[in-house]
């Protein structure tokens, strides 16, 4: 007896293949469509003057330089707070804590819950606690502290996964040579996990750049270059949000699209840098 596919099976096969292709092309298609839409509307209005000049709400100047600087400050300050805490928590969870202990479960439950809370609630908390109770006011610092709580789960989770992916045989080899624990962690385990840790930080940078509500609730919207961490600042995304609130003239539309274009380019650049870093680490070690 020979086995040939029945007609029904052949149709099923073709239909399944078509659905899979449809799904894949929709994903790619939407990305390209959004990119094309934003870039075709915005690219024409992005120029050096737009990127490098100041902004005033009454319209003498409509550049985005203060927002770019505020965004950079916000990223640096948030990562500066969240990365050390997150990485050390992840090291504790994978290298020190007994697997399955109560404390581990509590930390895990907390990070998972934090990850599921809508970001505006962090904004509300930051507004009450950092801005109000601690008296930090609407400032880059308030914003950065709020955002660092927001990104902490991402950093912990991704770093933890990167550390767990380091082969157990490295640890055995190192302890088998009588190397101290802290040496093993800093010289062997962390370097091996570095691509994953860098990825977690870059993902967090994307998150910081992308947030709006928790940022303007805590860092305010002042469209000037912040002189210190205690000054208010307006990030690019908050700026875009503010622009979309009052789109009356074609000039304002153009500004919004141009800002969106800059944001998209920044995100693409960050993604590319991540890939480069990850592949460079891989080449260096393997």
């Amino acid at each position, binding site marked *: 007896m020979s086995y040939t596919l029945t007609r029904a099976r052949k149709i099923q096969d073709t239909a399944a293949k078509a659905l899979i292709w449809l799904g894949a092309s929709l994903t790619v298609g939407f990305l390209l469509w959004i990119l094309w839409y934003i870039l075709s509307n915005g690219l024409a209005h992005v120029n050096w003057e737009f990127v490098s000049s100041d902004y005033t709400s009454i319209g003498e100047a409509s550049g985005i330089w203060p927002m770019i600087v505020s965004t950079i400050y916000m990223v640096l300050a948030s990562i500066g707070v969240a990365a050390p805490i997150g990485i050390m928590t992840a090291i504790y969870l994978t290298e020190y804590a*007994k*697997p399955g202990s109560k404390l581990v479960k509590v930390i895990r439950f907390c990070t998972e819950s934090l990850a599921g809370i809508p970001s505006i609630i962090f904004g509300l908390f930051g507004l009450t606690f950092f801005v109000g109770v601690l008296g930090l006011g609407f400032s880059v610092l308030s914003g950065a502290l709020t955002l660092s709580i927001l990104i902490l789960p991402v950093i912990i989770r991704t770093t933890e996964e990167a550390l767990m992916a380091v*082969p157990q*045989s*490295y*640890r*055995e*080899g*190192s*302890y*088998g*040579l*009588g*190397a*101290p624990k802290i*040496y*093993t962690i800093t*010289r*062997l385990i962390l*370097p*091996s996990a570095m691509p994953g840790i860098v990825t977690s930080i870059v993902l967090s940078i994307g998150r910081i750049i992308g947030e709006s509500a928790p940022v303007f609730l805590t860092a305010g919207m002042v469209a000037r270059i912040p002189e210190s961490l205690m000054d208010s600042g307006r990030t690019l995304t908050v700026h875009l949000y503010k622009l979309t609130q009052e789109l009356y003239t074609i000039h304002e539309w153009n500004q919004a699209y141009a800002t969106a274009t800059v944001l998209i380019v920044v995100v693409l650049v960050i993604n590319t840098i991540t890939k480069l870093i990850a592949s460079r680490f891989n080449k260096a*070690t*393997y």
Partner: protein
Amino acid sequence: MMNKISIKDLNLYYGNGANHALHGINLDIPARQVTALIGPSGCGKSTLLRCLNRMNDLIEGVKIDGLVTLDEQDIYQNVDVASLRIKVGMVFQKANPFPMSIYDNIAYGLRAQGVTDKKTLNEVVERSLRSAALWDEVKDRLKSPAFGLSGGQQQRLCIARTIAMEPDVILMDEPTSALDPIATKKIEDLIQTLKQKYTIVIVTHSMQQARRISDRTAFFLMGDLVEHNNTNILFSTPADDRTRGYVNGDFG
């Protein structure tokens, strides 16, 4: 004959007592000889090996009672685990070089002890690689990644890394099980050279290997040490029926 390691009434339990894996083991390991631990999978030979440098400390829920001495000193009482593991080095089943250069792999253990002097490190790296019969193959590419070496070279690198710490004892957990016959032969020859200086305890699946390279052999079955003797005697005239069955290939 002087015993390097002495094991008395050693019991080991996994999972907080749920699984009794080693049953009252008594075994003396003479200095500067090769002692082979043989037996079917799950018989406890690797577990016993890992008691000798306290690698089992890394596993959650392991309980041990009994006595293990190194040079007549109890290794479970008042002993710094790190310095024990320097004295009792270990080579693992699968070669596990670190993701760094050949040079840095060998220097790793010394650097972990705070040695930074370049001259000392260079000397130790060369001496260790020579002792592990790897120097001629890698001397021109000490700075290239260890992962570029073949499986057999990687395992000799791991042996060199262990030798760099100047241990007394080298534990080997099936060091050739992932290697081809030619690479295996090189490691076996190396073991014959190393035993002039070091006490070697090797776990092996291969009875032929135990016969070829060991001076003494201990046969394990389901957590019991059934029999131990000079390798020739154990293989030619085993005292226990179970040993005879295993070395004749009736089971395992």
